[in-house]
């Protein structure tokens, strides 16, 4: 096990813990936007698509598949954040 792998494990554990702690504190009122917002974050796979795309441009099949992934992830991110924003705007008005 390399040091970097151990650090990665540690970061994973800490991130899960932080997620658990913070999300437990979010009130019921905000659970719908929480769901749509965290959903948007899961589109982060786009990053993986960006990272591997340059390696596959010569293989038309793989390229297409990466593009499908990129497209899905982008819709997920943009649509998710945008609808979350729409919802939260409603809650903001009340202030």
């Amino acid at each position, binding site marked *: 096990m390399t040091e970097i792998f151990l650090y990665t494990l540690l970061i994973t554990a800490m991130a899960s813990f932080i997620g658990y702690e913070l999300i437990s504190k979010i009130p*019921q009122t905000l659970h719908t936007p929480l769901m749509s917002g965290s959903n948007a974050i899961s589109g982060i796979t786009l990053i993986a698509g960006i990272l591997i795309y340059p390696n596959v441009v010569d293989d038309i099949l793989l390229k297409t598949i990466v593009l499908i992934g990129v497209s899905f992830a982008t819709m997920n991110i943009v649509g998710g954040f945008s609808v979350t924003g729409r919802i939260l705007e409603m809650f903001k008005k009340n202030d």
Partner: protein
Amino acid sequence: MTESLYLISAVLFILALKLFSRPSTAFRANNLAIGGMVLAIISAFNLKFADYDGVFYLVILVSAGLGVVVSNRVQMTQMPELVGIFNGLGGGASGAIAYVELSNSTLVLSDFSVAIFSMTVGVFTFSGSLIAVAKLRGKLNSFNATVINILSGVLLGGVIALLITKIDYSTEYIIILSLLLGISRVVLIGGADMPVVIAFLNSLSGIAAMAAGFIVNSIILIIAGALVGASGIILTLLMCSAMNRTIYQVLKGGFGTTKINNEYAKDPISTSAEDIAIQLSYAESVVIVPGYGMAVAQAQSAVKELTNTLKSKNIGVKFAIHPVAGRMPGHMNVLLAEVDIDYEDMFTLEDINSEFSATDVVLVIGANDVVNPLARTDEDSPIYGMPILDVDMAKQVVVIKRSMSPGYAGIANPLFIEENTKMLFADAKEGLENIVKSFELV
């Protein structure tokens, strides 16, 4: 240098979750998360924008445009479906990326297994989410549980067998099997359990992204994936405990399919919109309990009108929101917020249950299971033990729904035939509008 932007990105995601804990700061939280995402994307390009061809940018642009259009068109009552669809897309993306990584022959074995894992989970999430959406829309019925259970077992066995015997060319098989597995698993679960399924799949899509992060060696994918994984799991457990069922019971499926004797011992007292208006005008405190029926009838504006009318007559109005009222957690809150009802007037089960006995009139709008007293009294009832809103403790109860038919759990609700309960049989929206109209005449 740009590559290290992901550090800031991670911090932004975490801060976003922290600020999400209050309605007043949640909008800012969403913007922070967007900032984190943009930074992560910039960090991934690492200034090598020229390595990408026009098609790539075009795909991103068109997909982003599609995302914006869909998210702006969708009605708030359709949020469960929308979240389900986006979730499927997220899973599908992880599946696709993992597939491509698998075709990279230089993978070491540990990365190889992580990629297989990511692909399986991603594809499973994809197909499962789409079925969940179809079910939410009421386009599918539950199949025979046993047959499909056996089928899923066989499929799962097949995946494992392929994994063990023939690693090299089995990726396509695994994809197909994962797809089938997602379909067959979710198809078994009753329509109204779909929110739990979607939250669970959301968690899985986070985990798939996390796994993808291990393969492409990107810490921000891992962190974001872990955060989403945690969020999904918490929401799943929360819904389960609000229904007093275990996650296993929900995901096993078959709930709501058993037939129960649903005959009522006597007839309910039915009432008219005019009578309700009179009854309400004599009340000092009113609690409104919205349920799935309010969403179906799109009655939230009518609720707002009634609230305004009552408040103008100095009648106190509060909203009692059960954690699983409607079809996703927080569903009712969003619908009410949409029509500008203050979130300070919305109360959770724990906060309001002790107040019902001092309440003059409780108005139940298209809610059913969440106010069913059998959950307290009948040990044989499928919902026994589920925490409910104790509206039957109030002085008077008025229920607006179209018929005596049961809610999702498929069981009769003795609240409807209690002495202090009156029923208004109507579509929620029409019924409320009629009540408001009658007020003008009172």
